[in-house]
């Protein structure tokens, strides 16, 4: 079972709450996905209100909220936002998103590391969203992150695991869970991430914008389970060693 900080998860599919055509559809899709960790942008919810539509639709015994700091541009703003989230949503979990580039939403490695150091001192469970940078992942691990969330490709792009080689290094080296976040556009991408040994994936756009988000959520759930099973079953090695018709080493068997 996947364990992050002190929490255990039976589902390795984490989800997001943006881009859905209604809060009801979001709820239906997230419930169908069986996801137990759901990220929600602080900027989208009114944490001071008991009647916030998004938050009301996330009140489920199995759903844990993972507030995110999307919108902040530096460590200082991120720490401030995290503190507000902790107070208002009564969770010390935070998905740290610092993207000063609003066009491609590329995470800032320097500010993310700074914020992680700061938030660790304040007792947060920190899940930073970052580029697929193996060194940065180790630095974040040392700084007190509880998991790392490297991207597969640009957020919202649905392009799959463009960073595959780096994700494999990160997974090999990491002592904390690795969650592939961003760019997963289809269940086959999610399965691939799980096959290479990712501990979990986070999917939002691909479910929210699908023709039928509920069916797509189920498809992702199954793909994540299948990918994890394949990882445990160990994939057969790729490539075959065909016997050449004129072997280069056959002469060694010749009688001299």
């Amino acid at each position: 079972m996947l364990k992050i900080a002190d929490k255990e998860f039976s589902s390795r599919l984490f989800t997001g709450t943006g881009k859905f055509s209604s809060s009801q559809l979001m709820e239906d899709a997230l419930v169908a996905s069986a996801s137990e960790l759901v990220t929600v942008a602080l900027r989208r919810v009114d944490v001071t209100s008991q009647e916030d539509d998004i938050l009301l639709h996330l009140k489920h015994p199995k759903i844990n909220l993972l507030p995110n700091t999307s919108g902040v541009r530096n460590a200082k703003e991120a720490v401030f936002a995290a503190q507000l989230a902790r107070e208002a949503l009564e969770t010390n979990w935070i998905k740290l998103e610092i993207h000063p580039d609003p066009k491609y939403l590329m995470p800032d490695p320097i500010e993310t590391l700074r914020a992680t150091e700061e938030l660790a001192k304040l007792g947060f469970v920190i899940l930073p969203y970052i580029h697929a940078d193996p060194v940065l992942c180790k630095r974040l691990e040392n700084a007190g992150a509880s998991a790392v969330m490297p991207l597969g490709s640009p957020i919202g792009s649905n392009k799959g695991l463009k960073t595959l080689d780096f994700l494999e290094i990160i997974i090999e080296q990491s002592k904390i869970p690795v969650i592939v976040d961003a760019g997963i556009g289809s269940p086959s991408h999610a399965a691939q991430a799980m096959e290479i040994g990712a501990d979990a994936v986070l999917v939002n756009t691909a479910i929210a914008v699908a023709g039928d988000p509920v069916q797509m959520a189920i498809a992702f759930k199954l793909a994540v389970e299948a990918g994890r099973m394949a990882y445990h079953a160990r994939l057969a090695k790729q490539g075959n060693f065909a016997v050449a018709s004129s072997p280069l080493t056959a002469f060694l068997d010749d009688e001299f």
Partner: protein
Amino acid sequence: MMSFKDLFESYSWDQVKESIYSKTKTDVENALNTSKRTLEDFKALISPVAAGYLEPMAQLSQKLTQKRFGKTIQLYIPLYLSNECTNICTYCGFSLDNKVRRKTLTEEEILREVAVIKSLGYEHVLLVTGEANQTVHVEYFKKVLQLIRPYFAQVSMEVQPLDTEEYTELIPLGLTSVLIYQETYHKEDYKKHHPKGKKANFNYRLETPDRLGQAGIHKMGLGVLIGLEDWRTDSFFTALHLNYLEKTYWQTRYSLSFPRLRPFSGGLEPKVEMNDRELVQLICAYRLFNEEVEISLSTRESEKFRNHCVQLGITSISAGSKTNPGGYAVEPESLEQFEISDERSPKVIAEMIKSKGYEPVWKDWDRVMQC
């Protein structure tokens, strides 16, 4: 320091116009079939010949918009603070030479307006004024921002252009975004339409987005007033401006708007008409050119047109707007800047958005994001 002016001056209006009008079907098809579109592709997409490709453009625009923004439409509302103005603008109801009663809201009046706006459910307000630097100056804006910040998640501004230092002072008080429309990039025509007042200075206006970028604004809006000049050429220069700004001030978000000239008392007839098909073509062309830019549509447009545009590429919409200072509570009967066309209430607009399969988004920013 390099500004957009240098780049702008390396282009000739007439050459750009000729280039747009000579685009061929092959140019349009190439623009449709590529994934990263250039300014030349954009020219093809806004050219007359692209009109024959409106449906595939719309299909693609919808797909790209949903990928980035999901099935959501943001809602905002203007709050007119003042109609005092020292500029003469040939197309504007607040022009100095227009005989209307001038009014600038007091703090007490602003709060009365805010109460009505809040009761409609809004979290994003757009502050609008004319240009009257004696009374509606940066100190006034500071007071207003401090006064209303507790009530809104997001505050935008559409006022006279300011200096970099002035923007730098306003941003920490909760100013998230600034809209600054060039009106037209045709320099000679600009002078004809702005004969008097500070706004007559074309270059100062042209360099305003640079000043905003240098001040570190979170978001800025660009656009031209459609009807003053050839809309295709003006839109090319808007795209050129956007491209330049995105590369230079990469930490800022951008939005576009394309108000079509609306009638007002004693006003100017549009020199160039743009029909609904052409406006749809422009919306789709912008989306195909830039997948990330926000596109907004105001109540200047008709009910039917707005209903359909929700699914075409726009990302934000206003509703229930009043374009006169005091229009919500203080002086509902005073003269408006322009006639609005879609008079439906925010509630009805939100229902319309839902009926199209989209989620109306009232809040997409938080005071906490800016500290």
